């Protein structure tokens, strides 16, 4: 799949950091504004897919491999389950809010909710990217 013209490539390369920052902002401020893990993960995936559409498959493969995307999705799921197991280790219940609360309305508040949002954000972004790569038939090895 070939890339696009010079104008599209330049603009998408310039826009990519801002899109990534916006997606990270939505994920991190999940307990203060509408948003959270799922919505921010979709915006992050859209930023990477914009680069993939503008530069073609080869340029995107050099940046984020298909194998790296699958590993990142599993890592996000592991963060989610490990944070839930912390509740069992401390001794209250599975998936309980066990980190200290902080003050209401600041970024580092609400206990283990920011960690949940972070894990699910990585999981959704990497999952959508894996689906995109798989439908375009980019896996580890191709048939020789």
């Amino acid at each position, binding site marked *: 799949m070939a890339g696009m013209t010079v104008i599209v490539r330049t603009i998408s390369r310039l826009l990519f950091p801002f899109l990534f920052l916006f997606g990270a902002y939505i994920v991190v401020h999940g307990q*203060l*504004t*509408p948003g959270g893990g*799922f919505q921010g993960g979709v915006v992050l995936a859209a930023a990477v897919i914009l680069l993939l559409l503008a530069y073609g498959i080869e340029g995107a493969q050099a940046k984020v491999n298909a194998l790296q995307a699958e590993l990142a999705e599993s890592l996000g799921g592991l963060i989610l389950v490990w944070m839930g197991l912390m509740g069992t280790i401390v001794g209250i219940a599975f998936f309980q809010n066990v980190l200290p609360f902080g003050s*209401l*309305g600041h970024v580092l508040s609400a206990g283990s909710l920011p960690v949940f949002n972070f894990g699910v954000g990585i999981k*959704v972004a990497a999952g959508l990217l894996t*689906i995109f790569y798989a*439908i375009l038939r980019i896996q580890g090895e191709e048939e020789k």
Partner: protein
Amino acid sequence: MSLNYIIAMLLFTLGIYCLLFKRNIVKMVIGLQVLTNGLHLFLISLGYREGGIAPILAGEMLGRGATAEFAAAAVDPVPQALVLTSIVINVCTMALALSLAIYIYRHYGTLNPFQIRRLRG
């Protein structure tokens, strides 16, 4: 006689019509999406309060710490959380359905569900 409920049920009926009367698998998937959108609109409209604010404690009410006043003026947060979950599950279902549609086209050469009857080679 509220507009939200009527439009939600009209979208639902339009989705059912698309599922029954179209002879293309991709169009039927689009009909499923329209049906689900109508359902989500209906669910969120169930929790509305007249003159209510969004269920997020921010700005001036957060500075005062007025949780009782906030609880008396906010809309219902539970249907919104359920619709969030439902949207993500809908995305997963549509991804698998469209992948199967690609497979069907590659194997049978047609996307008409009435011509895909016998299992071939």
